[in-house]
């Protein structure tokens, strides 16, 4: 195992009486694609801001390539790129001018720029809009431009705060292609997301809830937690039937996934029991997604707190 690029130990951030991030511990290896997931207000953005050196921790520390973000926030910055949810694009500059601006900011040598720009254009399909004002781009294109600006200096560590926020399914695919290309080239990437199908693609994820770690693992073993207990019920009236399922003693949880109802059974319960419920047209074993596990863990945590 190689030396971790990022080491987080006891990382804590308080805002007045609120503890937004509460003693986080994790490490990220070079080249890893690491996901931060959790409900709204779990502390994802606060964690990324501390790693990026733009928000000082209240306690604990994180090191990026050995440099402490608490003691030397400026020292860690050259190694990383941080794309905040509201990334600073200049709307009155063109696509090309924005990229050049960030290249200047990070002192990218002039002779290296054309090749890097061309590569980013190839991934992002932004080349044909090179001379368009950033303010006139669609939301998806803006996100791709923001990512290109963040990548122009070839950072070792990429920190992305919900890069696909408000982005359509097509641009979302493009953004992930760029990300995978970067990871393949060895760029360590930490990404927060509210799309759990995106989190499934990460090598490992940390699942946060109210600032604390609920789970820290590869997605596959996390999904195994519900193996043998997740069934998918079909119904003509999914919402009505979901409510009936929730009232059934064999059912721990029931949630809609599109038109299907995902049911987590109580330990040892027989899925065929569900067939007797009025309106259920079919019942089948399901393969648990990360979203199933997320809902289960967060609901269990909320039930404990109540």
């Amino acid at each position: 195992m190689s030396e971790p690029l990022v080491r987080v130990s006891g990382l804590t951030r308080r805002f007045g009486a609120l503890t937004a991030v509460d003693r986080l511990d994790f490490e990220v290896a070079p080249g890893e694609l690491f996901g931060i997931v959790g409900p709204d207000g779990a502390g994802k953005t606060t964690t990324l801001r501390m790693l990026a050196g733009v928000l000082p921790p209240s306690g604990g520390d994180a090191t990026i390539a050995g440099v402490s973000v608490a003691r030397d926030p400026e020292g860690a910055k050259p190694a990383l790129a941080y794309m905040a949810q509201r990334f600073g694009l200049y709307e009155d500059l063109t696509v090309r001018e924005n990229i050049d601006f960030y290249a200047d900011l990070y002192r990218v040598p002039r002779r290296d720029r054309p090749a890097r720009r061309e590569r980013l254009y190839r991934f992002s399909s932004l080349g044909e809009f090179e001379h368009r004002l950033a303010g006139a781009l669609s939301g998806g294109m803006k996100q791709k431009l923001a990512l290109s600006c963040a990548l122009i200096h070839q950072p070792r560590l990429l920190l992305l705060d919900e890069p696909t926020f408000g982005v359509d399914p097509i641009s979302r695919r493009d953004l992930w292609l760029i990300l995978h290309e970067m990871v393949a080239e060895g760029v360590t990437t930490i990404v927060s997301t509210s799309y759990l199908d995106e989190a499934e693609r990460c090598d490992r994820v940390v699942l946060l809830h109210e600032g604390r770690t609920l789970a820290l693992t590869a997605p596959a073993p996390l999904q195994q937690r519900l193996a043998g207990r997740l069934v998918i019920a079909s119904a003509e009236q999914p919402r009505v039937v979901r409510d009936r399922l929730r009232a059934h003693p064999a059912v721990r949880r029931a949630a809609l996934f599109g038109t299907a109802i995902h049911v987590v059974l109580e330990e040892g319960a027989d899925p065929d029991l569900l067939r007797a419920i009025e309106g259920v047209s079919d019942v089948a074993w399901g393969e648990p997604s990360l979203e199933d596990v997320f809902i289960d863990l967060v609901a269990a945590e909320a039930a404990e707190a109540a």
Partner: protein
Amino acid sequence: MSTRHEAAAGVPPRNAGTAIEVRELVRRFGAFTAVDGVSFRVAAGEIYGFLGPNGAGKTTTLKMLTGLLRPTAGHAIVAGLDVARDALALRARIGYMSQKFSLYGDLTVAENLELFAGLYGVQGERRRERTAWALRMAGLERGTERLTGELPLGWKQRLALGCAVLHEPPLLFLDEPTSGVDPVARRAFWDLIYELAAQGTTVLVSTHYMEEAEYCHRLLLMNRGRVIAEGSPGEIRALATEPIFALRTDDAARAVAGLRDRPGIVEAAMFGRAVHIAVADAHGAEARIGDALAAAGRSCDHLEQITPSLEDVFVSLVRREGGAGAR
């Protein structure tokens, strides 16, 4: 399969009146045509979904339907009113939740509700009832004195929805109300939409989440300012022309890179940890995919043809229409 999807949103209202009638609606900004001859009809009580790439013209259309933007040409009748002539009267009959957070972050929850009740002319006993209802709905009964700006996004959005319907409008417009909201809060938000629809409210909602599109009675898919498909989720799914294969492999990211731009392969993209591959022709596709993977040095653990997901169909329809525009 399709019967189940048709019924996704429950029984759509039958023989209901028309809530929205749009004919050849156009909006130009200078030389750019953002909305280009859009026509559709929404029945009263329907949950009607707007899909399309960023920049397809969804928000511009919503702004015209809510009287915030004048159409360049064409007509839209909303709740019996012409949006170009009766924009002010329209305001009282609709609720609108914009993409950008519309509440005042530096006001408390209670102050925001008071403000919107005042704006909508909700008075006296009714004001008390409606604000109490909105607080209950948003789960903020014990948070009335909290600053709105400090609430988690999911709660903010529920409160914004409560404010948008304080005056009990028969028609509700929601522009990407759940963008960036976590899955648990997103479900809670859709339960609210259903509650409103069950009470007879017509809902027009735009979204980028395909599982939310499944919750709608009917969908309108836009690209580059035009309508490219319309129908129930089942009908839209039936428009799929390219066979889709799902692949499980040890390294999906590299498999995608190896599959793109190969002969016979139209599209390859990650879907969770699996790869969805659109092919021009199902015949011999498995062998072609296997060859491409072998050339890229990737293994093929499991490959099967699947029913296309709504996202697969969405991507394929937009591609067929020349891809997404840049604005």
